[in-house]
């Protein structure tokens, strides 16, 4: 079903998308995060992307765990359904939601604490199952909501405000996702909307588990000089593997891309993904080269961003399980319940 949403603000000058909605219509509640928190920029990018994609808000289901990052779903698409589950378990809830209604547009938002510590198992296995969803990890290297402990993505040697040094190496969620068989893996930076918006759009257009690791600085606890997840450090060390654009109508490819360093991929929903300015030793369709590339960057102290890996032949959990095309919630009970005759027949063999 599709409904024409009454735009909240009837201001004529505001551009409407195909659903007849303005960007304001994709906003949510007022953020209660700290002023300057990276997560709020991610929210802005999401709003921009889903508006551009003209997604009907009520078809979206927003999911999260617990943490500052996990508050994000409240701040966009207030006309979408949302679920703020418990710490580290968003992925399983999303899996169930997808199982029940494969037509929903699932947007999961998590944090590095939520996904890489308590929720590592669920994150990994949901990637492995290739649940059809967009999974954004707002990665700030700390536990924001509990006041600034190191998270598992904190770099070795990076420091907390009070000087405490992180002794352990970081878990890189992008590498984990690729290792687990996620079919779309990207990384970006909350401060780089130009890169982030197309990635979100591409992730939403991708069929299967689309993962975006977004470095999203925590101004309250991890934006100081000795942090490697600060705005400054990230800005200085970011390394874009390839810039991407998402083009929905084939005709509109007008920008002229450089030969040799440009690659176009057609996605499941027909839109085209243009990879521009690709690093020569980088190929996002080859997991081995991609992983090597990411690790090489890391060794040099760089953060590889952009689309890092994509498997266009990706099939999702439903295909894996040979589950029917109709969303299970839409199957009428009469179809599902076999009735007495069938029950009697079945029992004939039970003796």
């Amino acid at each position, binding site marked *: 079903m599709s409904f024409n949403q009454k735009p909240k603000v009837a201001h004529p000058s505001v551009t409407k998308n195909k659903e007849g909605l303005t960007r304001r219509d994709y906003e949510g509640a007022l953020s209660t995060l700290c002023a300057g928190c990276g997560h709020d920029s991610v929210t802005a990018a999401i709003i921009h992307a889903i508006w551009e994609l003209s997604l009907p808000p009520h078809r979206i289901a927003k999911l999260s765990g617990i943490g500052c990052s996990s508050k994000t779903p409240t701040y966009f698409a207030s006309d979408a*359904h949302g*679920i703020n589950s418990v710490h580290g378990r968003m992925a*399983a809830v999303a899996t*169930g939601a997808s199982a029940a209604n494969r037509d929903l547009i699932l947007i999961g938002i998590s944090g590095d604490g939520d996904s890489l510590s308590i929720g590592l198992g669920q994150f990994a296995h949901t990637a492995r199952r290739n649940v059809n969803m967009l999974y954004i990890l707002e990665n700030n290297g700390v536990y924001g909501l509990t006041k600034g402990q190191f998270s598992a993505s904190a770099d070795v040697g990076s420091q907390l405000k009070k000087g405490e040094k992180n002794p352990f190496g970081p878990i890189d969620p992008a590498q984990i996702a690729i290792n687990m068989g996620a079919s779309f893996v990207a990384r970006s930076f909350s401060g780089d909307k130009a890169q982030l918006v197309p990635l979100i759009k591409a992730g939403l257009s991708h069929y299967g588990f689309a993962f975006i690791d977004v470095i999203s600085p925590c101004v309250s606890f991890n934006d100081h000089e000795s942090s490697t997840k600060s705005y400054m450090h990230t800005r200085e060390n970011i390394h874009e593997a390839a810039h991407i654009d998402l083009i929905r109508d084939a005709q509109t490819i007008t920008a002229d891309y450089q030969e040799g360093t440009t690659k176009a991929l057609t996605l499941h929903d027909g839109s085209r993904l243009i990879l521009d300015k690709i690093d020569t030793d980088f190929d996002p369709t080859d997991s081995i080269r991609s992983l090597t590339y990411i690790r090489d960057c890391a060794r040099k102290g760089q953060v590889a961003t952009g689309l890092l890996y994509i498997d266009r032949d990706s099939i999702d959990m439903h295909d894996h399980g040979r589950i*029917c095309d109709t969303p299970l919630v839409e199957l009428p009970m009469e179809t599902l319940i076999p*009735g007495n005759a069938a029950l009697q027949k*079945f*029992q004939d063999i039970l003796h």
Partner: protein
Amino acid sequence: MKTERINDFVLKIANVNGSGSASANSLLYKSIHHSGIPVSAKNIFPSNIQGLPTWYEIRASAEGHVSRSPRVDFFIAMNPRTIAEDIASVSPGGYFLYDSTRPLNKELMRNDVTFLPIPLAELSVEAFPDVKVRMLMKNITYVGAAAAFLNIELSILQTLLNETYARKPSLAEANMKAITMSHKYASENFTCPLPVRVERNETVSNSIIITGNGACALGCIYAGATVTGWYPITPATSIINVFGQLCQRFRRDADTGKLNAAIIQAEDELAAVGIGIGAGWCGARAFTPTSGPGLSLMNELIGFAYFTEIPVVIFDVQRVGPSTGMPTRTQQCDILPAAYASHGDTKHILLLPANPEECFYFTVQAFDMAEHFQTPVLVLTDLDIGMNEWITPRLSWDDNYKPDRGKVLSAEELEKIEKFYRYLDDDGDEIAARTLPGVHPKGSYFLRGSGHNKYGQYTEKSAEYIEVVDRLRRKVQSSAKTLPPPIIETAENKYGVITVGGCHLAVKEALAELAKDGIKLDYMRIRGFPFSPQAEEYIDAHERCFVIEQNRDAQLRSLLILETRAKKSQLVPILEYGGMPLDAQAVTAKLRGAIQKEISQ
């Protein structure tokens, strides 16, 4: 002359785990059933895959007393490693069939037991020169001899084999050959049948054979459940095994071959219940089967579903706790942990079936109640009910049944209303309407496990929080009326018993036993929590009730004390928790003792 035990005996078989004895034992079991005699079977197996001892106990009782009995009238010894304890376990006057290919240690012999040596291995070598075939037939051979001794008709065995191997007649033939061979040997070398024997009853009841887990799985199909997140654990796993098979039969699109169900093997129980909750939130009927350790792991998310009011059905096939405990032994030890699962103030609806029949019907009801009351519903069975095969009255289905989906607003209904608020109970039944994601823009809301007010908004305000949790308390309490009422059999005596789940057969047998001595007790079996008003009335009507259950800490009694108006002194605990299915003799003895104590006081 030996006392006759016609249609009233216990047959016990000792095997080695993983040696493929299941079909032979099951054949014996079914053949007695097909002889028209009430019968039950219990598989006593270790937490192991191959090589350790297992036992199979069959109890036939014309009177219908088929709870587990510790007596042994006829023993089939197929495990050399346990032969000493096996011999010791036979009741005086009993029989002991063993493979005499290797001689029996004379010292183990007993005078009060009749030994029946059959050279099973030797016979097999003659009959099946091919080693491979012989290995396959290894167990079936004792069925023939047992049939001869116990007077089980070969024709019944033949019929059963033909059915089992309908598609492989050669196997049916080989099996029958093995059976006939030892039947012949026994008949020729011993006086058959024995005083312990079957005498065929002409009326074979219209029953099926099914496990409790199988019945739960069937219930899930008939409830229209479509999503399950699950993680393997004994003794719950077979709910999924059967559900999977049933989906192939009932839920497969003939054209596409695709399934109308999602069966998701999760990475653990936290994910399993999370999947169920996600699906329940989106409007699917979802479930997850587990046992004790899994229940513990689900605690946090159960509280989430309770507080956010998401339906999900959880099966807890109870096994012996605490911790890993004895995974292949039975107990009823999760009653309290299930009723109050999760931190904070919570309370959950429990359904407490006693047998596969109830497993089936209660499962359907569990989904109705979960959706009606928008809350997790836990179905508590146990290993004995769940994994053993039970003779069960044929199930029937009312084709007019309409699932109770609870208050779910459709797109049309939403179109009409002004504004939707998730937790607003506007008709005073303590239940607020819900909406499903994707249905209509007006239905959207934000659901959270953190403090929220009746509009569904985030709150940290005392009054708003209290309003919501008070309604939750009343809501769950109100489900008592909808739950299956207790089974009450007479409420006219001074003393009564109260029991639950799989205890029922043993308790009833014990009551019958006591009645013979003129001790009359009333009977009530609890089938749901929160407790029905009838349960309270029953307790009111008795000076003392003996609460019989299978756990150490009297968990049902505790729950009755806390959640009914019963006085503590009215409820006297009778506990059996060694992990074996409840046995009537033990119950009788304990009841007798308890009553004596009452009288002498």
